[in-house]
């Protein structure tokens, strides 16, 4: 195996090379089987202590990380802090010092401020894994999306992937764009101009403003959640109008490629960005995404655990 090791933290896919991303996906492939065993547990992270530090609401991601940790035999503690009134910098430094003092090995952090994971990683010796930081990145979500695409198509290179909807507020979109481009996919983003950040083309992404056009071009479409909680008013006129113009509906699906697959990071706003019968239909990969999430997170935890070792030769084992 020639891929460089991952380093201490996983902050985003922007920092990773194509071979590092592939290493994570290949490792995740092996971990899928662990969740199918009668005893869904391997001793790889026995004795490691992991803190799940969630400064923002999360069900899927937190439970997915927790399953991944438990299936690797790590000991876990969940800290859910909804407070947002405290100055973020101060809170995090304080938190970091307290965590250090408790001799923990890894921290999984979700935080409303972009850059929070890097900030924490630079201040503690433990491994830090970004579970979503503001509008910056959500690397494990993009990795599970990549794994789901690779499962379906057998490859990422050359694949046409459309990312549709609220790109502006979406860390999922950002991480996906980095991951897809590094692995050689063609990426289109599509959404109302108010929800597309400026300068996207400079990354190598094509912008479309009509959802029909994007759906007819794509092999796979990743439908983003309209992030109502991150929006001030005025981005979209009304949810009904958004659904009419940008919703992934059954009628639009009928006009797209017959084997177009639908992904969504969840939670779904049914009837807003995606219709119920599309989300639950045969072209939807939404539940396989969730299954892959556990495997991808196990792979990341396994590869990062133990700090940032030099690229030493493995000792001969039973040779």
């Amino acid at each position, binding site marked *: 195996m020639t891929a460089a090791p991952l380093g201490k933290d996983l902050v985003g896919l922007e920092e990773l090379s194509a071979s590092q991303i592939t290493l994570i996906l290949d490792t995740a492939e092996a971990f899928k089987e662990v969740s199918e065993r009668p005893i869904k547990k391997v001793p790889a992270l026995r004795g490691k202590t992991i803190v799940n530090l969630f400064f923002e609401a999360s069900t899927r991601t937190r439970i997915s990380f927790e399953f991944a940790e438990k299936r690797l035999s790590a000991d876990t503690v969940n800290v859910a802090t909804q407070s947002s009134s405290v100055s973020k910098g101060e809170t995090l430094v304080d938190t970091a010092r307290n965590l250090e003092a408790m001799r923990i090995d890894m921290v999984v952090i979700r935080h409303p401020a972009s850059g929070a994971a890097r900030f924490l990683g630079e201040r503690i010796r433990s491994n830090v894994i970004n579970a979503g930081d503001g509008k910056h990145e959500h690397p494990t979500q993009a990795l599970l999306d990549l794994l789901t695409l690779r499962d379906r198509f057998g490859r990422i290179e050359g694949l046409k992937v459309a990312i549709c909807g609220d790109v502006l507020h979406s860390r999922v979109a950002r991480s996906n764009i980095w991951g897809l481009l590094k692995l050689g996919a063609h990426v289109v983003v599509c959404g109302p101009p108010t929800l597309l950040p400026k300068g996207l083309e400079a990354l190598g992404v094509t912008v479309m403003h009509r959802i029909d056009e994007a759906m007819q071009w794509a092999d796979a479409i990743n439908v983003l959640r309209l992030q109502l909680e991150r929006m001030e008013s005025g981005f979209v006129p009304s949810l009904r109008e958004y659904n009419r113009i940008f919703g992934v509906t059954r009628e639009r699906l009928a006009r797209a490629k017959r084997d177009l697959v639908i992904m969504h990071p969840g939670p779904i706003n049914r009837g807003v960005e995606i219709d119920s019968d599309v989300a639950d239909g045969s072209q939807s990969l939404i539940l396989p995404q969730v299954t892959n999430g556990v495997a991808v997170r196990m792979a990341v935890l396994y590869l990062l655990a*133990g700090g940032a070792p030099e690229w030493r030769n493995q000792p001969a084992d039973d040779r």
Partner: protein
Amino acid sequence: MATEIVERCLGTDGLVMVGVQRRGVELAHRLAVLIHRAKGWVVPLGKLDITLYRDDLQSVGPRPVVGETSLPRELDGQTVVIVDDVLYTGRTIRAALDELADFGRPRRILLCVLVDRGGRELPIQADVVGLRVPTAPGDRVDVLVRERDGEDAVNLVRAE
């Protein structure tokens, strides 16, 4: 070796052969073919990757690559033959036994290795051995198989 496995398992049905990644997998496959030719039995095959059960995971450098584990069916009440290329410290087999226990409770587990090079660090011995080679700790025993390496060979590389 195939004959010896058959002798030891005569009268027992429910035989399963499990190759330890990586070259144990090919060796198990070959033994199964030989047994099929001689006796007409179709022996179910499995693969076992013991990486996640290693006792030195915390100390080895970058994480070792995790390979595939797939076992053919319920192991409860079966006779499982673990097949590996080289038996040295016994730590791989310790890990394999732990991993098998997470899949079920076999009636019996046997160990079959192509090369026993001595140097055990755990009280583990093989039931069926192809070749016994005395070695020193710095030596290397490389088993090559045609399917993976293009040739069949056992190379003993002495320490400098």
